[in-house]
């Protein structure tokens, strides 16, 4: 028979399985299978292989770091007339930042092969009327949530809870992205549907928490730093092939502890390194230096610290050649400390927060997705609404966890019969925040629970 030819483009691995015809009854095995793995590690040259048997089936092909997002794509059947390209892009595309091919893109310094996709993803997440649902609680933290409604911290319960959230009909109207924990990225619903597919169908971009948590920072004033850079590149590439398109890394800064120059520098540098690695692997990095609410400081002090932190963050991002059109921010709002005698109105929070953003965030950044950090559901929504009363150079929206999930948990209580009600609660909070993003929210009709503060002193994720 005529051989079928495959063209294997640069940086691609292709795996074939040879399955023999059924062997004679007296042979020890029923069938013979051989795995044939072919890799093209060359940066510029494709090669061709020809196979002359109908018994070879293409098992998988996998793009390594540099090529288009087709890694989870279809199998290609052998047939005489096809001579398919493996890899949908011409090999003339710049394979990576170390290429010596002439730059075709305008932004030489900050280009990687994912540039266009990163910009598109960031814009999709930063779309009007939508924000992020953060459900990336580690197993331990998720356990605390489940315990609060009397549930054990089992994988089944975590699956049930995340399933409730992610299969909420109509969620995609108000939610543009969802941050997952690693377990959830690889989970399926009880019906066997991948969680990431549930999200994709709703036009919600899946994201993934990539940091490895906070640990004490030696030589500091009792402050922390965020771990997770080791092996981050390959983990990010893995998450990308699993369907994630953005990443999140949360570091913290404490006002009562100074913050020390060391802690600020470390927080900013870690974020900058993480951001560069994420972009290199196709994930839009969400940059999150949370300035903790803990403390009794006035709002002016928070403003000072926020300005210092963001100044450092952007400078290091620039030094690491991060492309600002392909990042998102997740700042804390500028508010007084939790123990400060005066609470600030939403208008005051908006004024100070916008002042800080205008002084520190380059307009190239497409979206700013605020964290709620212990504010009540309603507070978080009102503050967001106040910030959207006039046009801003960037999309100003939300990335809420507790402020979106609190009512849901209380309504669900772990009971299957409450799932629909729980989903309604989520949709209602999501809609409120969507309206706030458009500057059109009204507090009439909010429940008492929505007003309850969720600040936990010394909160650890």
């Amino acid at each position, binding site marked *: 028979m005529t051989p079928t030819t495959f063209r294997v483009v640069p940086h691609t691995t292709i795996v074939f399985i040879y399955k023999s015809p059924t062997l004679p009854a007296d042979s020890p095995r029923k069938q013979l299978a051989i795995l044939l793995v072919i890799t093209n590690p060359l940066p510029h040259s494709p090669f061709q292989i020809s196979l002359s048997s109908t018994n070879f089936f293409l098992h998988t092909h996998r793009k390594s770091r540099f090529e288009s997002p087709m890694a989870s794509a279809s199998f290609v059947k052998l047939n005489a007339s096809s001579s398919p390209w493996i890899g949908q892009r011409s090999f003339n595309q710049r394979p990576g930042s170390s290429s010596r091919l002439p730059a075709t893109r305008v932004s030489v310094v900050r280009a990687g092969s994912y540039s266009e996709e990163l910009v598109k993803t960031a814009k999709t997440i930063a779309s009007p009327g939508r924000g992020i649902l953060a459900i990336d609680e580690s197993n331990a933290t998720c356990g605390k949530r489940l315990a609060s409604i009397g549930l054990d911290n089992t994988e089944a319960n975590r699956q049930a809870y995340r399933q409730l959230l992610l299969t909420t009909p109509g969620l995609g109207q108000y939610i543009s992205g969802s941050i997952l924990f690693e377990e959830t990225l690889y989970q399926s619903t009880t019906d066997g549907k991948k969680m990431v597919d549930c999200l994709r169908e709703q036009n919600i971009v899946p994201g993934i928490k990539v940091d490895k948590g906070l640990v004490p920072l030696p030589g500091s004033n009792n402050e922390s730093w965020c771990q997770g850079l080791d092996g981050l590149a390959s983990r990010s590439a893995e998450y990308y092939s699993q369907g994630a398109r953005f990443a999140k890394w949360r570091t913290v800064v404490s006002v009562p502890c100074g913050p020390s120059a060391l802690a600020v520098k470390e927080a900013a540098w870690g974020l900058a390194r993480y951001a560069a690695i994420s972009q290199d692997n196709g994930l839009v990095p969400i940059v999150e230096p949370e300035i903790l609410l803990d403390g009794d400081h006035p709002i002016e002090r928070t403003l000072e610290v926020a300005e210092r932190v963001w*100044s450092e963050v952007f400078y290091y991002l620039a030094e690491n050649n991060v492309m600002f059109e392909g990042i998102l921010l997740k700042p804390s709002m500028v508010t007084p400390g939790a123990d400060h005698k005066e609470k600030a109105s939403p208008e005051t929070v908006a004024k100070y927060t916008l002042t800080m953003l*205008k002084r520190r965030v380059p307009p190239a950044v497409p979206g700013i997705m605020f964290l709620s950090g212990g504010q009540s559901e309603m507070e978080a929504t009102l503050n967001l609404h106040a910030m959207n009363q006039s046009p801003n150079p960037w999309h100003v929206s939300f990335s809420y966890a507790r402020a979106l999930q609190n009512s849901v948990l209380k309504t669900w209580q772990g009971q299957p019969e409450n799932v629909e009600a729980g989903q309604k609660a989520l949709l209602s909070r999501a809609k409120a925040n969507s309206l706030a993003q458009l500057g059109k929210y009204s507090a009439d009709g909010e429940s008492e629970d929505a007003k309850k503060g969720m600040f936990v002193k010394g909160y650890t994720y």
Partner: protein
Amino acid sequence: MSCYKGKYADELIANATYIGTPGKGILAADESTGTIGKRLSSINVENTESNRRALRELLFCTPGAMQYLSGVILFEETLYQKTAAGKLFVDVMKEAKVLPGIKVDKGTVELPGTNGETTTQGLDGLGARCAQYYSAGARFAKWRAVLKIGPNEPSQLAINENAYGLARYAMICQENGLVPIVEPEILVDGPHDINKCADVTERVLAACYKALNDHHVLLEGTLLKPNMVTPGSDSKKVAPEVVAEYTVRALQRTMPSAVPAVVFLSGGQSEEEATVNLNAMNQYKGKKPWSLSFSFGRALQQSTLKAWAGKDENVKKAQEAFLARCKANSEATLGKYQGGGSLSEGASESLHVKDYKY
């Protein structure tokens, strides 16, 4: 204190915002005595105080020109000079609602150990001088830092040193009521392409804003005077739309929206080129939360000088040339410049001087 909150804060913000008024820009007439001498000798005019005064009077008293200007940068001598009729130049400007500005740096010196890179002097006694200039009527200041592009330039030392100088100068100005124009000029000299210029510009501006933030400068009360992002002088020219795209993108990546306006330097572009590029930037569709305007020296005065040639009988003709350029650039800030028209002699002449020293 997160940034300057002293007694001039509101005034600084109001003045900086006013300078960026759409339809207006800055005339840079702050040539030092030595530099203005070069201009005058190019039209065979002697470098005397009287001639310098006459030239400046020609410019500031051009009928109808002041409406297109929000500020004029002066050299120290000019701040105290008067019209032939005895009126102080600063009063002429005040009446026309044009803010007087003052050059406060004391020129560049070489950085030892570098390949001809420089830093700018002028911090000593700057506070006292600024206070003096404020009482004489100045409301904004200018300090020119210079960087160049080469195989190993600009070095991190040159970037840091110049950014630091700009930040210290800016803070001292604000303490004394003057809006600081922050000018990190990256010279156009060289064979590099527009991508290289963009890369360097973005790095330099990032360092400048980091320094300004570290020094607690009130960004809402400052202005930026950068170079446009263009190919090097020895490299092939590109269309104005390309200059616009690269320049706006560099600013989007580095300049916080708290800064009210950008007043571009012309850096040796011809009068027409500078106007057309500015126009393209204001037509460019993209996020531009700041005003994009001009602070031109040579690109506003070249054809005026040629027309004047030092002769009294040419004053009217020279003033017409000046008015035309002011109007053209005013239209460019609104994206409405039609281009070409009847260009005066010299309007399309390149004003590039290699390794230009002020």
